[in-house]
């Protein structure tokens, strides 16, 4: 069974630029999560989708971050404009029954 796919794996941008990350969850998984993991910390949930509806986005900085999950499968996370403090690993995860999450390898973002 193929795992969660993410791209790109690495991205370097300058502050105030825009960036987008893509996630393809495990086939059939209804729930999709985007996390931000700053170095030395645990993952922080940014947004959780159930199919193509949002379950929780309380920790998503909505003035600069946006996410969508069209057709309830793939998802994109966008940052516009990026700030230095956005430098982190962005993890995507999916689950079938809620609590067992399968993570992708993440996208390491560096904002200069």
């Amino acid at each position, binding site marked *: 069974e193929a795992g969660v796919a993410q791209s790109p794996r690495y991205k370097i941008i300058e502050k105030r630029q825009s960036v987008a990350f893509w996630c393809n969850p495990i086939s059939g998984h209804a729930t999709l*999560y985007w996390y931000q993991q700053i170095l030395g910390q*645990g993952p922080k*949930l940014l947004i959780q989708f159930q199919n193509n509806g949002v379950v929780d986005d309380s920790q998503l900085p909505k003035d600069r971050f946006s996410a969508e999950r069209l057709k309830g499968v793939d998802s994109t996370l966008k940052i516009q404009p990026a700030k230095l403090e956005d430098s982190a690993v962005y*993890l995507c995860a999916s689950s079938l029954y*809620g*609590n067992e*999450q399968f993570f992708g390898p993440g996208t390491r973002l560096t904002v200069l």
Partner: protein
Amino acid sequence: TQLLEQSPQFLSIQEGENLTVYCNSSSVFSSLQWYRQEPGEGPVLLVTVVTGGEVKKLKRLTFQFGDARKDSSLHITAAQPGDTGLYLCAGPRSGGSYIPTFGRGTSLIVHP
């Protein structure tokens, strides 16, 4: 907000030593999960504990859920270099839907 506090934050030991890491909260959790994250990868689920007092074993790893379901521990016997990684505990926030929250993690290095 339900917080998960993990200790110690860092642990550096020699191969063959035993160790215990902790995950504590002032709140009751319906379940807790332990993940291991290796450098450059996403977290991988090790175990889910659901019942207060529950003990689960995974080869040399022993997981325990506190009787009051507010804390959990992970004990590793005879650690090996392959055990090196970031150990994260996670649980659902209060409420109906499963919305996960993670601790900051314990970074373990096992030296040969």
